[in-house]
Each structure stands twice: as structure tokens, then as C-alpha cells.
């Protein structure tokens, strides 16, 4: 019995170390005075200062953010509308389309990257931020559709009928009744799209033009020349932002749940 407990705790601790040790090391080394990520010499904020002057890295970071935010916004709108349309309407070939949606999710990224590249070359689109953005929108849409679809069920349509009966138009019903119901799916779809875009390397690699650079591409190319500690600093900042956003989201969620509990 006690032995079991011991093993269980040990196991949990090991899993956590496995998950978090790399992240902790990264944060530690962002404050390390040595240029090498091997031994910790002194505490310093030097890399954070250097980061502010590393125009290339900051440019790549702002490109990444712009692409992630724009592609998330566009793919969430298109994906949500598609999911609702696919759920509601009957049309020939519906099952086929429903099945095809999974293909971009399951095929290897590298294949998707190559096919997107050939489309852009064939249609003589100039490679750059624009094509990266298009590609990110394309691979995000299926994720949004799948996420939103999971919140749609026969009850959703029945509740919409109540709104129609009260005299609401289709548009008003969608905006005030359907959207609030499926909102959790929309949010998780958007979050998925955002994270996928933020750290995408493979597809961006194929569809980026000369001179256009995203942060993951930049870091990837630095592997050859050696990663400088200011990348650690930047990563730590991104991590901090992520943690803050997550905390705010969690607090918001528990608050709304508490509010509901209070109403009882």
C-alpha cells in the first residue's frame, strides 16, 4: 500500500520534471552571463538588453505575431461559418466534404507545405508574408471546423427554432443565440489555430519567400550558426505572455462559474 503510494508520487514527479525541466533551464539560461548554454556563470539581464537591439529577431517576432493574429481571426470566422453550414444544411456531397475536412489534419505537414508551394508557384503568387498567411489560414480552418462542430448538436437547432418562432431573423438568431451556444468551441478552435500558427516551421519554410522570416524559421536557421542567449530571453518573454494569458483565462472561467453558483 505505502509502497504503491511512493511509486505513484515518484512517477508523477518524474513526469513533471520531464515536462518542465527544459523550460526551467531555458529561463535560467536567459539570465546566464556565459554565451554558452552549458555552465551557469553569473546572473545578468544582458540578453534582454541585447534583444531590444536585435532588429532581425524582433522583426521575425512581429511577423510571427501579425501572421498568427490575422490567420487566427480569418480562419476562425471561416471555420465557424463552415461548421455551422455543414451542420445545418443538406446538400449533395455533404458526407464527402465532411470527410475531406480531416485530410489537411492527418496528412504530413511536409506534403501540405509542398502542395501549397506548388499552388503558389502555379498561380504566380509572390512568396512572402502573404503566402505564409494564406497557408496558415488554410491549415487552421479544419481545426476550427472540428472544434466548433463538437459543440453543435440537435438541441442547438431546436433552440434556434425557439428564436425563429419569437420572430428573430436568421442573422439575429445566429448572432445572439447560436454563437453564444457554440462559443466555447469557437474559442478553443481559435486558440488551437493561434498556437499552431505561432510555432509552425515546416509549412512556413516551404511558403516563405526570400527575406520574409518568422520567429520559428529564424530560430531554426540559427541552429546552424549557434543559438544566441537572446533567443532564450525572447522565449522566456513569450512564455511569460502565455502564462499571463492562461491565468487570466482561467480566472475568468472560474469567475463565471462562481457567478453561476452564486445565482443558485
Amino acid at each position, binding site marked *: 500500500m505505502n509502497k504503491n503510494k511512493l511509486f505513484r508520487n515518484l512517477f508523477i514527479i518524474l513526469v513533471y520534471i520531464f515536462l518542465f525541466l527544459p523550460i526551467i533551464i531555458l529561463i535560467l539560461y536567459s539570465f546566464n552571463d556565459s554565451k554558452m548554454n552549458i555552465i551557469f556563470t553569473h546572473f545578468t539581464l544582458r540578453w534582454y538588453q541585447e534583444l531590444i537591439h536585435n532588429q532581425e529577431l524582433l522583426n521575425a517576432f512581429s511577423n510571427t505575431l501579425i501572421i498568427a493574429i490575422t490567420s487566427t481571426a480569418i480562419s476562425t470566422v471561416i471555420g465557424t461559418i463552415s461548421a455551422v453550414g455543414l451542420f445545418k444544411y443538406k446538400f449533395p456531397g455533404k458526407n464527402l466534404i465532411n470527410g475531406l475536412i480531416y485530410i489537411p489534419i492527418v496528412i504530413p505537414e511536409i506534403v501540405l507545405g509542398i502542395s501549397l508551394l506548388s499552388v503558389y508557384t502555379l498561380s504566380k503568387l509572390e512568396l512572402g508574408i502573404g503566402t505564409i498567411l494564406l497557408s496558415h489560414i488554410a491549415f487552421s480552418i479544419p481545426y476550427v471546423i472540428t472544434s466548433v462542430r463538437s459543440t453543435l448538436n440537435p*438541441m442547438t437547432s*431546436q*433552440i434556434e*427554432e*425557439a*428564436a*425563429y*418562432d*419569437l*420572430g*428573430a*431573423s436568421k442573422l*439575429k438568431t445566429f448572432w*445572439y*443565440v447560436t454563437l*453564444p*451556444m457554440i*462559443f466555447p468551441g469557437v474559442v478553443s478552435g481559435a486558440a488551437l489555430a493561434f498556437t499552431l500558427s505561432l510555432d509552425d516551421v515546416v509549412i512556413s519554410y516551404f511558403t516563405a519567400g526570400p527575406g520574409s522570416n518568422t520567429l520559428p524559421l529564424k530560430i531554426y536557421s540559427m541552429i546552424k550558426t549557434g543559438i544566441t542567449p537572446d533567443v532564450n530571453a525572447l522565449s522566456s518573454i513569450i512564455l511569460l505572455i502565455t502564462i499571463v494569458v492562461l491565468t487570466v483565462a482561467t480566472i475568468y472561467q472560474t469567475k463565471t462559474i462562481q457567478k*453561476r453558483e452564486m*445565482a*443558485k
Partner: protein
Amino acid sequence: MLEVKNLKKSFGDKKVLKGIDLTINRGDIIGIIGPSGCGKSTFLRCLNLLEKPDSGEVILEGDNLVDNKDLERIRRKIGMVFQQFNLFENMTVLDNITLAPTLLKVMKKGKAEKEADKLLDKVDLKDKKNNYPEELSGGQKQRVAIARSLMMKPEIMLFDEPTSALDPEMIGEVTNLMRQLAKEGMTMVIVSHEINFIKNFCTRVVFMSDGVIQEEGTSEDIFMNPKNSKLKNFLSKINNI
């Protein structure tokens, strides 16, 4: 006030309604009975165009609802109460009731809330105003749904098995509310399997089977002196339970 003329509706090649004619006068309380799957719900849903008829007319106070551009405005005059309540789950009871009138600019927010208070008092749910539907019992949910319909001041109310999803001890609170509405002169069309409720409550009863109205008449005609053989058969089955 509501006239249905030669209403037909099929799903694929399955003919569900094969030509229904019915005239409903102000103050009528019409009960629709019939075997399961005979098209009662479909008929009711055609009355407010939730289901689009293949042919025929649905005329409410002179306006034909079929292919009417003004359908949304006319629908406000028809209140529908569903078996599964269909409340807006992510809104409080008060928001459920005030959403439609404020959104459709029938009332200002303040007026709508006052009106909602009155109605919640009427359906005896004043203390549940700020609760969410998931915190209510079935009977309470259905009373909220009725209050939500009443907010739009409907001329006629359609009930599709309003008590079928309720525990037996809650049926009374909903039927009592319906009785109260009837006293106030509301015109109602009710589909229900609660045969005794239909028998005692409705001024006219319609028996549907095989996509047509087989017989219609007063409650007495239908239950005491049935003429149609299918109706006789239907009633004998019910009485055997």
C-alpha cells in the same frame, strides 16, 4: 383567425401531410390527437413555418404565411411551446424572457424588464429570475418557456407535447398555467398524449391519422360518439392501457 387550406408536406418521398384543412377561431382551444408519427408535430410546425409546406396556405388574419416576405413579423403573433423547452441555456431566466422583445425593438429594456416581472409573477417564478435554465426543474423550465412566448403578446399559441418531458408531479403546474391562459381568452392549439387533459380542456378536438384529419368535433363528439373507424380503434387502444 387562422385558416389552413389544403396543406401538404413530404419528407423525401414520404408523404406526411396529405391535404389538411382547418379553421381556428379566436378563443378556440384545439386539441390534436393521433397515433405516433402521423404528422401532428409536422402540422404544428407548418403553422409557424418552422417547416415549409410543399403546398397549401396558412392564413393568419388575412396574411398568407407561406412565401411571405414579412414572415418574421407575423411569427411574433404565434407563440410556440416545445416539448424540450428550448430555453437559451447560457442566459438567465430574465434574459431568456427579455431577449426577443428588446432585440426586435418591441419594447425598451426597462419596459421589457417590468413586463417580465409581471409575467414571472404570473407563472410563479419571480424568485428564479436570475437563475440559469439548468438550475430549474422541468416544470419550471416549461413555465419560463411559456412566459417567454407571452412576452411577444401572441395572438395564438401552439403547444407540442408541452408535458411529455416532465415528471408526472410537474404536469399539473404546466396544465394549470394553460388553463389560466385559456380563461384569459388565449387561442391555443395543443398536441398532447395526455388524453384526459385534451378531453377535459379542449373546446374542439382533431383526430389525425395517415396524413389527413379523420374526424373533428367537440370533445364530446370525439370521445363519446366517435364515428371514424380509425378513431374508434385509436381510442380503444388508449382505453386498454
